């Protein structure tokens, strides 16, 4: 799936992945890829600005540690992040349900 399709949903996806437990950037990317059945494929480096922004907004927190001689930043969900995730999840479910009602109620055009 092209990265453009993720625009607008990336925050929800990242918060959902981090909600499963603290993760560093590479682990976030791997979790995103594996949970989506490798459907989400974007330049991996571009998730860091999004993580960075979510941290600035107070939805994620981060801690630094040293692993195998290199610095590692691990992200975790904050209280505000949990609230935002619940809100975004509910908004997404409403959106999907509304789209399904429209799409599901219309007969598919016949193909010949």
């Amino acid at each position: 799936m092209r990265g453009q399709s993720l625009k607008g949903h990336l925050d929800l996806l990242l918060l959902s992945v981090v909600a499963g437990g603290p993760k560093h950037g590479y682990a976030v990317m791997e979790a995103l890829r594996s949970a989506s059945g490798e459907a989400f494929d974007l330049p991996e480096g571009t998730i860091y600005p999004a993580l960075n922004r979510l941290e600035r907004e107070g939805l994620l927190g981060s801690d630094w540690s040293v692993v195998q001689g290199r610095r590692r930043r691990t992200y975790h969900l904050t209280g505000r992040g949990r609230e935002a995730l619940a809100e975004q999840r509910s908004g997404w479910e409403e959106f999907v349900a509304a789209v399904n009602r429209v799409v599901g109620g219309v007969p598919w055009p016949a193909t010949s």
Partner: protein
Amino acid sequence: MASYQLIDDYLAGLRRRMAWRADVDDVIAEAEDHLRSALELRIAAGEAAGAAQQAVLARFGDPTTVATAFAATGTGGLAVPTRFTKRAGLAAMVAAGLWTAFAVLWLTDELAGLSERIDQSLALLAMASLVGAAALTVVVVVGLNRRHGGLGPMGTIGSVLVGLGVLATVPFWFVMGWGVLLAAGMLLVALAVHARGLAPTAATAAFGAAWTVGVSTWSVLRVLEVGTRDEWGDYPIVSPTAITVGVVILAPGLVGLGRWLSGETPADLDSPEPLAAA
């Protein structure tokens, strides 16, 4: 820690493109951890080091894409050089010239004993220089705000005062009016800029101090009643002298800030939408 040349070169390139960020070390550390984590998994799975590095870097995205993604998500609240801040830097250097022209024209007008026609022409030119210089100074202040991702309450108050000072330059003879507004405004802006530690210190100090020194000089000369008293009870040499003192400090400050702002590589260069490049 093993050295992998392609990864090292990539990180050096990314660092160059991200040098505008105060937290560039953290950004690079995070990218390095990502790349090496991915690389170790591939090498452990039996891939050759060269091919593994190329694959890891291809997945991470080219440095320009990554740097642009940071800029695209970060212009609200992040300290980012942009095409606007670059232009604000050029405006600062033009403003330095116009402030200098204003001081020279007014001082010449007062000292030279010119005919009335030339005197009026010089006064008009001086007024035009002042309005132009003041307007461009507002552009510089906006540029400084944007370059720092906002300057906080102190910088905002200072910016508003500078704006009011510029409006007050239209009746340009009211030197103490616009002088005090610009002095207070530019001092607050400079203090806010200095607190963020990105701009060159000497230029910031000159920018902040110029009109405070100019207004102080005006007050001292006025109290000492320097020069000849005119028919309105004024001392005509006081204002242009005080302005010249202010401009001698301000012009290098504007040039210094202008060189800094205009010399940076904008982070909002035209490039593919970061996420669209996937």
